[in-house]
């Protein structure tokens, strides 16, 4: 195996920690389902944990459940997904542009800030019982008789660290892409104009600005275009969440010093629109664009065939960016006070824009594979195909719920969180990220995977587990089972919950097979070198040799 370089090592570190966060998030998922299916099964663990929880009272089962539920998506999305995305992009962007990361010192800063921020959020929820959920609907997070004050402040500080860190990461990405170390460099303004297709629009209107560089025309790899355009959504998401966090922090600090502020000073509906506009950029913006970019990059690499519709896909990504700015009302379809035209236009019709962008992306990806036949079904390609399936399945579920009529019976049910969100995240994004790890591992280490059988166990365990889990909980949702509801036991939804638990365990088996395969492929020394300073390992090797 070649000596792993500095950047490659950081990429692997991001991946390792991201996978640990995935394991944590999955473990929490199984704990929550256990609490739903057999409320007393966790009594022993809860008693032990309560002994070290910094609380002034014995927390109720509901407080524990909702504290865990608040921590769960932060660890899953900002811990697992963002860590892997950062690691992969820190390697791929300079690799494809053939230049170095612009600010190398920011790489370890990003790593440690992100780990710290996510862990502070997790501790605030899991141990501090902060329970306002990631949606932070105003004014719940500042009702301190329902949500504990100090953990609210620590959670917001943790979330702020994560958001600032995401802004730093995006700055490093933009500054690497835009740096003037090659002839295709751009100012930030030029980049934004190109990202939103302004120069293309001007050309279409007969007013071509020949000096305006356009990412569509200047030959940048389509993956870089996707990273650039997706990162615009990433930045907006981070800024919006930071503003909401500052607002909650102001109320929290005022309450801490005995001068509580009036929550009704902020209109709950305006806040909800603002918050969802920004929060939705993760799901309907950068997740889709980053994923499209990764498919566009890996599928031609893995099949050895040029991407079908190369000229179209950059436009598709641009349209996706524009669409992502206008779809947030699909989260407010249950709000009858949201103007009807907003619910129909933004909530339903513009949301269908993603049907077109993802539909064309999936078409280009599958046609590329089809035309490249016979293709070698490598682990990475299998997982990319699995992720395409996940996005198709989650996308259909999403369009059904993002409907003014049908949302009446789907809003806030398990349909939303299982069949749509978890299919997107676990089958879609999760399998895409596993595909990236399988593709990058030989590039970073020049090693072949040790066991094909373990890849099979990983693939089938993960895809069957995640699909069955999402499907049964989606069916429970169609039977009226709400998300975020700790139903008394027994309840009519227990059989669905038990099957979902079994599916989660199947995913865990697949995940363990993956970890064993990766660690045995790397070898223990190399795996340890990611987390232990190299000089320690060298010293140990010298001692053994002596």
């Amino acid at each position, binding site marked *: 195996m070649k000596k792993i370089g500095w950047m490659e090592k950081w990429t692997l570190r991001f991946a390792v920690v991201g996978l640990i966060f995935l394991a944590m998030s999955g473990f929490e998922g199984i704990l929550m389902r256990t609490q739903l299916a057999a409320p007393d099964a966790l009594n022993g663990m809860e008693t032990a944990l309560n002994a070290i929880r910094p609380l002034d009272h014995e927390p109720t089962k509901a407080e524990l459940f*909702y504290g865990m539920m608040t921590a769960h998506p932060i660890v899953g999305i900002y811990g697992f997904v963002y860590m892997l995305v950062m690691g992969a992009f820190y390697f791929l962007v300079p690799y494809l542009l053939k230049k170095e990361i612009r600010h190398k010192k920011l790489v370890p800063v990003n790593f440690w800030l992100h780990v710290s921020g996510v862990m502070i959020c997790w501790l605030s929820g899991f141990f501090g019982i902060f329970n306002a959920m990631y949606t932070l609907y105003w004014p719940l997070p500042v009702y301190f008789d329902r949500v504990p004050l100090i953990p609210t402040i620590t959670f917001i500080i943790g979330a702020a660290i994560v958001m600032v860190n995401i802004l730093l990461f995006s700055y490093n990405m933009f500054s690497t892409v835009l740096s003037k170390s090659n002839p295709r460099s751009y100012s930030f303004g030029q980049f934004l104009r190109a990202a939103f297709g302004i120069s293309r629009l001007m050309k279409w209107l007969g007013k071509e600005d020949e000096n305006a560089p356009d990412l569509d025309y200047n030959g940048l790899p389509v993956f870089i275009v996707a990273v650039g355009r997706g990162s615009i959504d990433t930045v907006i998401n981070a800024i919006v969440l930071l503003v909401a966090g500052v607002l909650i922090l102001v109320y929290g600090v005022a309450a801490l010093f005995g001068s509580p502020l009036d929550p009704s000073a902020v*209109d709950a509906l305006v806040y909800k629109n603002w918050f969802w506009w920004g929060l939705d950029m993760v799901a309907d913006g950068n997740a889709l664009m980053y994923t499209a970019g990764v498919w566009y990059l890996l599928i031609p690499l893995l099949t050895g065939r040029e991407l079908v519709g190369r000229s179209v896909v950059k436009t598709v990504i641009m349209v996706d960016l524009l669409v992502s700015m206008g779809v947030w009302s699909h989260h407010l379809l*249950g*709000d*009858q006070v949201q103007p009807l035209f907003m619910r129909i236009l933004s909530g339903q019709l513009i949301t269908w824009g993603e049907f077109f962008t993802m539909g064309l992306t999936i078409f280009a990806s599958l046609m590329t594979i089809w035309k490249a036949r016979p293709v070698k079904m490598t682990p990475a390609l299998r997982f990319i195909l699995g992720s395409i399936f996940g996005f198709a399945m989650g996308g259909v579920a999403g369009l059904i719920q993002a409907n003014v009529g049908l949302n009446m019976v789907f809003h806030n049910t398990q349909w939303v969180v299982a069949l749509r969100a978890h299919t997107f995240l676990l089958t879609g994004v999760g399998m895409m990220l596993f595909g990236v790890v399988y593709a990058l591992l030989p590039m970073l280490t020049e090693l072949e995977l040790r066991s094909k059988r373990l890849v099979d166990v990983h693939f089938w365990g993960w895809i069957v587990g995640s699909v069955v889990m999402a499907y049964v909980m989606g069916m429970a949702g169609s039977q009226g089972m709400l998300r975020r509801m700790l139903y008394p036991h027994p309840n009519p939804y227990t059989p669905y919950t038990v099957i979902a638990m079994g599916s989660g365990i199947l995913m865990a088996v697949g995940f363990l097979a993956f970890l064993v395969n990766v660690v045995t492929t790397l070898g223990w020394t190399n795996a340890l070198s990611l987390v232990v300073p190299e000089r320690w390992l060298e010293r140990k090797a010298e001692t053994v040799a002596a």
Partner: protein
Amino acid sequence: MDKDEKTWLGVLIAIFIVFNIVTLSPLVPWQKWMLWSDQTPDERIAVEFQDYEIRLPAEGVEVKTGELVEFVATSNDVTYGLGVFRKGGTMVFQMQVVPGHENKITWKFDEPGLYDIRSTEYSGPRSPEMFVEDAIQVVP
């Protein structure tokens, strides 16, 4: 864009048009009175949410099948959800109850019987307690 892509785009456009026309049309029963009619409700029921409680009219809620009922929900603290459920647990309809606003929804029950109300939005750790059994009686 080559021929295959154009064909596929055509398929996507056709699905978009058909799905949206059908789901916005009166084929979805409640769209008849929500989108396609200006009918004045036959009855108005005020529901108040506060401090984890769902407060219904003191005299109870009794409505007739086929009657257009308007539920007007208000919250005096945080966001809740007004969800009406059949006895088996399936949902009839729901809406968010946003504080500082009058949240209105009209409904026409087509089956007589007893219906439960549950808050469908998380409002704090005691949310699961927000359940009113047999809250609505629908008579023929």
